[in-house]
């Protein structure tokens, strides 16, 4: 079960992927209890992911020493390597739109949902929505606004999990505020 997470497990400072999956599972269960409404839970997970993403990007940049991306294809490669770095999974990048502003990330398994079964009343729960939020938060920090959402999910009986990413716009540098 070391598919998720596993930076070297011999490093005592790192946690095992299993611990992360289970922690995330209890988090989702708790939010479900607190909110009851599945749509609200989806929103909360996305928001939490966003808050993680805006910090995680700095860690990613510091470790990979990468500069700005020139096009969206480069972005997809960087995103792919980030999944490798933080979750030790390698999603496949595919299904590019004709204008190269949309792509899909295919995960053979849902990386966070190792031990999960969705009860019937949670059918609309987007269990791994935190990933979508993290991706949006991280890319916003490097001045790329995207939208992203799950279109297939192994938890719902699909063969694989597919996350769709769409480029919206490039955020321009903020001009410093002038003197009053």
């Amino acid at each position, binding site marked *: 079960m070391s598919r998720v997470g596993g930076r070297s497990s011999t490093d005592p400072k790192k946690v095992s992927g299993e611990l992360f999956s289970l922690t995330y599972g209890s988090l989702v269960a708790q939010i479900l209890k607190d909110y009851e409404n599945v749509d609200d839970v989806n929103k909360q997970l996305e928001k939490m992911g966003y808050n993680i993403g805006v910090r995680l990007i700095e860690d990613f940049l510091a470790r990979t020493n990468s500069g*700005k991306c020139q096009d969206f294809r480069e972005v997809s490669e960087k995103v792919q390597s980030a999944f490798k770095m933080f979750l030790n999974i390698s999603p496949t990048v595919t299904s590019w739109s004709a204008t190269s502003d949309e792509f899909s990330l295919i995960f053979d398994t849902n990386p966070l949902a190792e031990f999960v079964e969705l009860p019937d009343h949670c059918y609309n729960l987007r269990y791994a929505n935190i990933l979508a939020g993290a991706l949006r938060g991280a890319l916003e920090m490097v001045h790329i606004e995207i939208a992203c959402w799950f279109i297939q999910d192994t938890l719902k009986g699909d063969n694989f999990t597919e996350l769709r990413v769409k480029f919206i716009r490039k955020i321009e540098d903020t001009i410093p505020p002038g003197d009053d």
Partner: protein
Amino acid sequence: MTIYNLYIFHENGTLLYYQEWHRRKHTEMSREEEGKLLYGMIFSMKSFVNKLSPSDLKDGFQSFKTSKYRLNFYETASSVKFILNTDTSVTYSLVKDLLKAVYAQVFVEYAVKNPLYKPGDPILSLLFKNKCDHFIKASSFYK
């Protein structure tokens, strides 16, 4: 060789952090105003350098030098801006390596990974200050 002072700016222009070591002359402005002035100058400098460049630039504006000091500028892909003033005998590439290390080993570790620190606010953490001080003083071109 000497290091005078360090400014760290958020992408929106907020002065996140300031620390000085061998600065002997001070402006009459408040630190906040000084930060605004510097940020504005860097912002103009960047667009100036990009506009006047005869070919596409990879790194853009990096540093300038006067008879007394060199201002070194390093910006991450997330637009965190580091400005380090040194004396003129220090080369930019040395400073760039130092600033990259400050980013990766001080800024990310002790500001971004601190859950009590809200991104975009000035950094008040004492731990951050100590680590930063230690890091700069350990560098090969701190006197």
